[in-house]
Each structure stands twice: as C-alpha cells, then as structure tokens.
C-alpha cells in the first residue's frame, strides 16, 4: 500500500503557540485513516494543514514537509486551488450554501470553469448518487439545500466535495452534529467511498474510529503519540497514554 500523503516532521504555530510538534505519518491510499485525541490535541489543525485550509487563518505558520503523491504541497509556486481540488473537505457542521441543492453540488465544477449544462447535470446526479442522497432529493433539486435535515445536509456536503473528483477527502468530525442513524449512513458511505478515495477522518467518537477506520492515529498535545492498524491500536496499544485514552481514563 503506497502512502498517498507523506508527512515529515511537521510543526505548526498559531502565532507563538505551537499546535503541532514533529508530526510524521504516512496516510495510505484507498484506506480510511481516523485521527483521535482529546479536544485541542491538534488533530483538526493537522487535518486542515493537509489541504492548506490553515492558510486562511491570519498569523499561522507550518514547518516540515507535507507531500501529496511525493510533491510538497507547501512549496513555493504550488497552486492552492489545484491542491484543494485534489484534497476535498467535509466540515464538522454541515455547511451547505444558501443555494439550491443542485447549485450546491455543482458549485465546485462551476468555479473550476465547467459551464456545459449537460455535464453539470451529469455531475450533480453521479455525485448525489455517490453520496447516497439521490433517491431522497432527485425530485426537488431546486429546493434550498438548507431545507434538508442535518444528516441530509452533511451528505449534500459530501456530494459537493465529490463533485470536483478529489483524490483525498478530509472529514473533520463529520458526524458530531448528527443523530445515530445519520451517523450510521455516513459511516456506510465512507466504506463505499474508500474504493475510489483516500479518506482521513477526525473523530471524537472512539467507537466510530474503531468500527469505521482501517488506520488510527492518536494525537495528544500536538504530538502524534501512536499510529497503526485500527484493530491493533484498540486492542494492543503500545503507548500507555493511548491505552488510557481509549479506555476512557481521560479526555
């Protein structure tokens, strides 16, 4: 299994506050990698550094290397727009645009220059199907995306991310605002999606990491403490701190 993303010695700073310390990790292609850890441990910061979303926050700085298919994404001259097209993202709170369901899905293709109505229609349909939402919304594509339920909105956001045909999908606690049934749907969806995409998911929910991921990384105070097969992390953790966390002794 080749690494899709290779991270070497990444330090990250918000101003003078260091949020990540020497993070090194290989994220495998067509696998689901879960990042767990207590609040403020840096797992979301790490996730957002993979598609350079932290660039939009004033006063942040990253040192070290983040390689996507062997190319450093923080090198001068890297096209951030192209990077974000390849590395899509789903956020914690469902955040559809106040636009129609259809316009939400084709937003990405449109900003990337697609204008052909036939192609956009096709993209909308395949993306909504891939996100498991098509059957629920196919007759009301011109309704507002905000009129959907929370779980549907999150799947709409996944469809929107899929529409630009990314290679990697980053999910930042995508189920934390959803009910158990919607959560289950998203987890099933992830298993479908990993055939075509590499998925990295940040989660607060350890059961979710245990049942839905192939690899798990445990973050604590900005450091990646332990990383390995999910089954091993949850049954035979090597580090005492990992064990304490997954057995619920803190966090």
């Amino acid at each position, binding site marked *: 299994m080749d690494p899709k993303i290779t991270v070497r010695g990444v330090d990250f700073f918000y101003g003078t506050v260091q949020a990540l310390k020497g993070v090194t990790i290989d994220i495998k292609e067509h696998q689901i990698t879960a990042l767990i850890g207590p609040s403020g441990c840096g797992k979301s910061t790490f996730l957002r550094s993979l598609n350079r*979303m932290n660039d939009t926050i004033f006063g942040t700085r990253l040192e070290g290397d983040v390689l996507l298919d062997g190319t450093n994404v923080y090198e001068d001259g890297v096209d951030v727009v*192209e990077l974000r*097209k390849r590395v899509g993202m789903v956020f914690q709170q469902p955040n559809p645009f106040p636009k129609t369901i259809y316009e939400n899905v084709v937003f990405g293709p449109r900003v990337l220059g697609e204008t052909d109505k036939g192609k956009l229609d096709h993209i909308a349909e395949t993306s909504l199907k891939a996100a498991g939402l098509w059957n629920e919304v196919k007759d009301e594509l011109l309704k*507002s995306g905000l009129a959907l339920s929370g779980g549907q909105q999150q799947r709409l956001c996944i469809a929107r*991310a899929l529409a630009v045909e990314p290679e990697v999908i980053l999910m930042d606690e995508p189920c934390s605002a959803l009910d158990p049934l919607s959560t289950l749907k998203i987890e099933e969806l992830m298993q479908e999606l990993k055939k075509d995409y590499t998925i990295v998911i940040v989660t607060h929910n350890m059961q979710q990491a245990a049942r839905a991921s192939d690899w798990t990384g445990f973050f604590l105070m900005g450091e990646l403490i332990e990383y390995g097969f999910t089954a091993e992390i949850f049954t035979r953790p090597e580090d005492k701190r990992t064990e304490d966390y997954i057995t619920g002794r803190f966090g």
Partner: protein
Amino acid sequence: MRVSPQKTEKLAFGAIWASGAIAVLVLVFIVGYVVVRGAPEINAEFLFTPPRGGLGGEGGISSCIVSTLWIVAVTMLLLTPLGLGAAIYMAEYAPENKLIGFIRYSVELLAGVPSIVFGLFGYAVFVTAMSLHFSILSGALTLVCLLLPFLTRTAEEAMRAVPRAQREAALALGATKWQVVARVVVPAAMPGIITGVILSIGRAVSESAPLFVTMGGSSHMPDGLMSSGRTLAVHVFYLAMETNALEKALATGAVLVVLILVTNLLTNSISRRLQARMMGAK
C-alpha cells in the same frame, strides 16, 4: 415592596406593547395627515404640469417628479458599485491593522456629519471648483458623498455576518478568493445589502438642504445631467417657506411618501424574487 415576577412580566409586556403601538400610531397619524390634507390638491393637472411659481404656488409638480427620479437614478448608479466595492474591500481584503481601524472609524464619523455640511462641500467642490454648476450631476455627486459611508457600513456588516464556514466550504472546493466573494459572500449578504440600498434611496429622495445648494432650484423640466432641477423634497421646502400654499406643499409631500413606498415595495419584491431564484424554495 417586591413585585411578583408575573406582575413584572405583565408590566414589561404592556410597556413594550404600548411602545410599538405608539410608533405605529405616530406613523399613521403623520402619513394620514399629509395625505388627507394634501389629497384634494392632487389631480391630473397637479401631476402633469410644472410649477408656475408665484406666492400661491401655482402649477403642479411634474418637473419635480422627473428631477427626483433623475437624482435617485444617478445617485444610485454611482453609489451602489462604489459602496459595494468599498464594503467588499473592508470586509474581505483589508488587513486588520490600525490604519484600517482608523478608516473604519472615520467612515462611521462621516455617516454622522449633518447633510448640509455635505451640501456646502458639494457646492464648493462640484458646483464651483469643478464647474459642474447647479446641476443634477452636482446634486447626485453630493448625495453619493453623503450616503457612501452609510451604504459601505451596512454592506460591510452584512458581509461580515456571513459565517466563516461558508467561506471555508467554498475555498475547500478550489474556489479563489474572488470567487468566494462573488459567489458566496455577496449573495448570502444580499438581503442586508438590499436593505442598505433601499434606505439610501429613501434618503436620496428625502434630502433637501444639500440638494438646494448643489442642484439649484429651477422648476423647469430637466433635460439631462447638466440641467438644474428641483426635487420633490426641495419643492416642499420651497412651497412651505416661500409661498402660502401649504395645501400644495402637503400634496407634494403625499406624492413623495407614495413614491418612497412604491420604491421600497418594488426593490423588496425584486430582491425577493432574485433570492428565491438563487437560493431555491425552502
């Protein structure tokens, strides 16, 4: 003596209800008074002939209606893009530093400067220095200066209220900064921006002093940007101060009120339709 929470609740509700009722009553009374006393004067001749002057305020208000429309159209054509542009810069591009803070503070101060001061400025700069004379253009430029701080501020607030999550969603899809602004922030802020535009139109229609000193007071039918003119509000002022035709002044006021009402309704319905098409039905 301690008043029970139930009683406080009732008292508070009563006071709030009364305040609301008084606000509505005052509005109804003013508009009602103007319309009832002015209405008998309103007829075809009044609406379709220009003022003839004289102590009795002879003639109608046709040229004033046309002047008003001219002023509003020219002002809004210049003001809207300028205000939106400034707001976009302030909300999206300006770095957060002392200079920008100072600019923002100045804009706020400027919004509170009495309009006649802007009128004098317009007279000195546009009418005299730039030799635009008493003209619709001078008047409109003055109103642009007067309203720019207000519209900029309103539009900026509306854009700042667009959640960060929306911007991030667009960025994460590969949108450029400008695409985020044009396709996400501005559409989402549109209701607030429209409100700002409507209020600006209202002020452009109702200002009299700054226009009196920049577009003159000619009662002739304006025939272009460079002609002098007299808006309805200026005409009301003229009728009230220079003639004894109070009924005509009230009639003009009634037309003015109706004009503002129609403009607001129109702008509102256009923006609603625009939004429904853009955002989809709920």
